[in-house]
């Protein structure tokens, strides 16, 4: 067992945390809306905040046991941390940042490790650069290399891709997944974005008001909870299989659901992938009213299952076979369409609106 956590802690102006979980050699996603206490859990594990009550053990070594008034200092915990806004040291260059955690290492060993982690995180060509002028993705990769360099026993990631664009996100997420396996370091990943949870997570803990209310495979938990109000970056996340490749496009089969056309990908026919489509990117038409000759390549019939209205906006849940979709529509448009549960409808979205994430 890598990490064992039992924590009770009152967050100032927030919920009371009461969580118990363990992390083996895996990536556990802490998932939940803003203010649920996700980041505080990471800070408690890292020793940056002392819990009111609790026990934290890492690799069978006690890091914190409040009943014995024991609290290991942060610097001795050997925990790597990647932040939402990278927190690189602005007065050091890239090499200085990555080398920062290697102060106790021998010179040769440290230089070897620096080169190794820089190559692993694809920042070896940036080592002599200053931090200023790096792109958001480069900064996060430097942050990852810095965290990994001293060989941490646990890696904590606090929404590390939330400030990146979509392509930067995908690159870093894939890098995190591969680095975790290469370095064999257990990881806790905090997010409120379903696509990130599915890409990096082996297991998902759903946090609500300071408590873990659901646990399981990310796709299973996300399917169980459905589209939830208050979750930013609402996306449809579906597991799919590559059915065929054609010129400039790939056909995917969603099990129990429709066939999708997405931009051509390198995955082999038969490979499992995860496809994400933003709820905002899906157009909705009344059945039979979708115009012919659309440029969008995905025109999928379905049935409105339920409608959840939040003030100006509404989320329409559409069923296609056994697969549920969430479509974001503004309330006036919904009224104009006269949709209600049971109405047949058509979902329309571009192939380019589909983003693929490798699953295996």
């Amino acid at each position: 067992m890598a990490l064992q956590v039992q924590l009770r802690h009152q967050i100032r102006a927030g919920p009371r945390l009461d969580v118990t979980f363990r992390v083996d050699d895996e990536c556990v996603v802490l998932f939940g809306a803003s203010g649920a206490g996700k980041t505080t859990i990471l800070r408690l594990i890292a020793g940056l905040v002392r819990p009111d009550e609790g026990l934290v053990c890492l690799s069978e070594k006690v890091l914190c046991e409040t009943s014995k008034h024991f609290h290991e200092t942060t610097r001795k915990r050997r925990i790597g941390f990647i932040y939402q806004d990278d927190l690189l040291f602005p007065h050091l260059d890239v090499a200085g940042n990555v080398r920062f955690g290697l102060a106790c290492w021998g010179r040769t060993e440290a230089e070897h490790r620096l080169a190794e982690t820089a190559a692993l995180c694809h920042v070896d060509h940036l080592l002599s650069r200053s931090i200023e002028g790096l792109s958001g993705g480069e900064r996060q990769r430097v942050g990852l290399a810095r965290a990994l360099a001293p060989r941490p026993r646990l890696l904590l990631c606090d929404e590390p891709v939330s400030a990146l664009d979509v392509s930067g996100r995908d690159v870093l997420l894939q890098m995190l997944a591969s680095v975790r396996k290469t370095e064999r370091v257990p990881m806790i990943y905090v997010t409120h974005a379903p696509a990130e949870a599915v890409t990096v997570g082996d297991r998902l803990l759903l946090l609500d008001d300071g408590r873990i209310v659901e646990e399981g495979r990310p796709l299973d938990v996300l399917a169980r909870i459905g589209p939830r109000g208050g979750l930013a970056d609402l996306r449809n996340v579906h597991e799919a299989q590559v059915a065929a490749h054609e010129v400039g496009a790939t056909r995917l089969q969603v099990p129990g659901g429709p066939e999708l056309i997405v931009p051509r990908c390198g995955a082999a026919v038969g490979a499992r992938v995860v496809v994400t489509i933003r709820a905002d990117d899906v157009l909705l038409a009344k059945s039979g009213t979708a115009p012919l000759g659309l440029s969008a390549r995905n025109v999928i019939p379905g049935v409105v299952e339920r409608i959840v209205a939040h003030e100006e906006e509404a989320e329409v849940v559409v069923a296609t076979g056994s697969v549920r979709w969430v479509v974001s529509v503004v309330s006036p448009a919904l009224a104009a369409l006269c949709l209600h549960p049971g109405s047949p409808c058509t979902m329309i979205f571009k192939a380019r609106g589909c983003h693929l994430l490798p699953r295996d």
Partner: protein
Amino acid sequence: MTLELSSPLLLSLRVAFFATLLIVVFGLPICLLLARVRFPGRDLLGALLALPLVLPPTVLGFALLAVFGRRGPVGSLLEGAFGVAIVFHESGAVLAAAVAAFPLFFLPARSALAGVDQRLEDAARLLGRGEWSVLRHVTLPLAWKGLMAGTLLAFTRALGDFGATLMLAGNIPGRTQTAPLALYDAVNAGDPARAWRISAWLVSIALVVAWFGQRGLERRTH
């Protein structure tokens, strides 16, 4: 430069140097404490330390005389225990200049230290660094501009102190007569040429210090 002119100028430079050293050595821990730790009376202590900036220099000098004079609580102790005299000594000039110039270091330095993102210090701790290493490799380099500006301001202020120095160290030529006191004497004695020469030297020194400071800050920025 004549001996008559060089003596007060060299004394002023020596006094300003040691006063600045005192300010940095004692001021840095105090600034760190006030910037990082919350405790009852923190704001009051901050206000007290900034007080010399707004007090009339003669009042400040009189207060120092009351504390460090031969009959004062600290002065009598220092003289009795260590044989150290403050009043009418160069050490008195250093002390007066240090106290008068302290707020000019304290205010920018405290603000610069408080402005360092504490999450960067946490990031350093997570990378295995102890508190001393965090201070040396993260906090001080990031607060460098404010610390340097404060040090230069304190040095130039100490160089030009008049009122507090006069009250505590007196105006003894060759012993405690700093350049501003010599300038005052020159004006009183109707010797404007000497007064101009001293002023020119003081302005030149201040300009050189400001130029070095500017260069240092720019180099650090780029």
